[in-house]
């Protein structure tokens, strides 16, 4: 089948998509958007977090066909060109990245949190990011990064 949708503001389509392919598979293997990571394929780890029509989802749990006509934003669409988004910059500065595999999903999930809750408490951050598994950091520096991003976004 053919699937057509918008990703990061651009109209794209993929041909000869097998009906069982996930949105994640299309993004990575057909569109070359390798930012979204494939770590569990069960919606447990959040590494493939993307926006579908503004809603945060795991791309591994969305069938490719369900993306038809939708507006998708991936981690590649978070930055403004080469200028990092404050959430990304904060992750770099706070040391919230070790192996980096969870990072894209956490960036999108933290971005989503700060859209709804600009000044989150630590408990609110913990709850919002509970669907994103990080195996390296123990999360402390990720919490620091989200607080740092929130402070900076509030002051601009």
């Amino acid at each position, binding site marked *: 089948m053919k699937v057509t949708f918008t990703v990061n503001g651009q109209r794209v389509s993929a041909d000869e998509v097998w009906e069982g392919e996930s949105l994640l598979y299309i993004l990575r293997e057909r569109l070359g958007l390798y930012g979204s990571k494939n770590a569990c394929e069960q919606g447990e780890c959040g590494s493939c977090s993307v926006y579908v029509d503004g809603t945060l989802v795991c791309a591994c749990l969305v069938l490719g066909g369900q993306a038809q006509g939708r507006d998708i934003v991936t981690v590649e669409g978070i930055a403004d060109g080469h200028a990092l988004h404050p959430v990304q910059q904060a992750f770099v500065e706070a040391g919230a990245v070790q192996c980096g595999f969870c990072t894209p999903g956490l960036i999108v999930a933290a971005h989503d949190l700060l859209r709804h809750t600009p000044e989150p408490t630590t408990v609110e951050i913990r709850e919002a990011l509970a669907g994103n598994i990080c195996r390296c*950091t123990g999360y402390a520096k990720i919490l620091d990064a989200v607080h740092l991003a929130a402070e900076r976004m509030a002051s601009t």
Partner: protein
Amino acid sequence: MGRDGAQPAPLRTHRMDVVRYWGEAVALVAADHPEHARRAAQAVRVEYEVLKPLSDPEEALSDDAPRLHPDGNITRRIKIRRGDQDPHADVVVKGEYEVGMQDQAPLGPESGLAIPDGEGGVDLYIATQWLHVDRDQLAECLGLPPEKVRLTMAGIGGAFGAREDLSMQAHACMLALRCGRPVKMAYSRSESFVGHVHRHPARMRYEHGATRDGKLMYVRARILLDGGAYASSSTAVISNACCFAVGPYECANAAIDGWVVYTNNPPCGAMRGFGSVQNCYAHEAQMDKLAEALGMDPVDVRIRNALETGSSLITGQVIDGPVPVAELLRRVKAMPQPAAAASAHLDLTQMPGGVSNTTHGEAVRRGVGYAVGFKNVGYSEGFNDYSTARVKLSVAGGRPRVEVHTAGAEVGQGLVTVQAQIAGTELGVHDVAVLNADTQVGSSGSSSASRQTYITGGAVKAACEAVRERVLALAVSELSGLGRADSDADESGWRLEHDAIVAADGSTVITLATLLGEEVIEETREFRPRRTARLDAETGQANAHMQFAFAAHRAVVDVDTELGLVKVVELATAQDVGKAINPQAVEGQLEGGAAQGLGLAVMEEIQVKDGVIRNPSFTDYLLPTTLDMPPVRMDILELGDPNAPYGLKGVGEPPTISSGPAIVSAIRSASGRPVNRVPVRPHDLLGV
């Protein structure tokens, strides 16, 4: 395939007539779409004669057990005998302990891209822990000379020991060479669970004897590790489990017996902490028991017996350099403790059971526990360890530029940053590029055993020093040739700083751009740590290790004593890192390592029944999330090891050793239950 390479490999690439575990590769399929490959794989028919699996490591030791390998079922036997074998003690405590099978669960599954070169060779892009050992094993598997197999580090995705052994490397190369086309291979999460080795499950029986005033008189221990179907690094893991069986304590008399055996269970090998994680649960539970039997404070009894500089280990090795075991314990004990949960501001996320809303504090008891542990840094027992670094200084765009090239595997620990820091510091150059790791430069050894900052960092430092020496010599000859050298100038005071040679008084002698012009200065150096020796087969005595790293933890937990649910409220740790080359990355290791310790203590277990993994997914294998992992209070000591580059110590593993045992100690204290097995399950706390 373990570092010893003496045992059959878990991955065999030739025709086979025996399958020893569930998950062993028997056929390979490549296709133009993963779904086609899956369906084709399903169409492969294999005829098995199904035998009764040998799944109990205790049974594997018995003479009646089927022999899984030609040499029998014992992969390695360790005996340590020290001092009086029949010593007197006023107080004796005994215990049996069990540790379940933990998975490294690196977030990036095994994957790689193999590209045939059209001339019989192959290029492999891969995330691994040791490029050169992979290359050598692949060359052997593929029947190619090593120079025909070239590896390049690709991606990271975490490792924690899971990438020490080959997984899909040979398979992808075989398919690529067969098809004459590039082949990409990526494990699903469930394939990843069966496609790499795990932390060895352990059964341990301990007996401690002490004097009435708390002096440890002897330790007897029997340690049995289940190595699964193939050897991997089992022989080194059991060595560690036995060498450090007593913990970081003085003990003049010891008898340690260790076995690691073959079974038909999934193969086990390297995971962060490597043998010291398992035994720490046992020796720390024993120290708590001893304290209770003596009516002593559990921290005091540990301090009373703590190793110090000049102490002998049970292997007879005298440890030099700082050994701050007592100091670490004092520090974690002195740290402020978190306030009790305030019922007026109920926060469910802080309760056992969390937002499942199972308690508002009823039947919740708080416990505090302590643990301290240690292990070796680097490879032990006579391993010929080294790392290679190539450093090149040139001028690009009118500015000096340094390129650092090693094969050191960045797995997320921060090795690339550390190499850049060292080169930038040693050569005083702002523009430092660390080239991607590949096999076009000499081996850096493995990103294992907390060794890379020490060994590869040491190699980069040595190569930089060689480059600096040539730069300074060039400066002397160039400047005297130009008649600019001041005969009164003290050239020995010159240093490299801010892209220039700077004199002792801080004035610029000459910029590197001017000095070098078109010249390129390149040096390659190998760095070797001090040598070690193999354990004596009968007594286990030897100077087997080159460095030791210590950490202590305190855990505060709340236990719902009616439901057996646990909330770890806070972890506190003190660790001597020698010198923190990158303080932020060091903190990240302490926090992340503690999270993996917490996982094994209360959440993570690969459940195996009759050799089959029952929970190979992130849905069924539980990893700590933001709601499980508490804040970590840290006290980082930099005591400086005189034998190591910059005085540093390996950092990555100690946080994973004593964090879990401290949590279990706190759970015992809160619940009043013995808790002899990890991960702790609700029914262990309820006696049902």
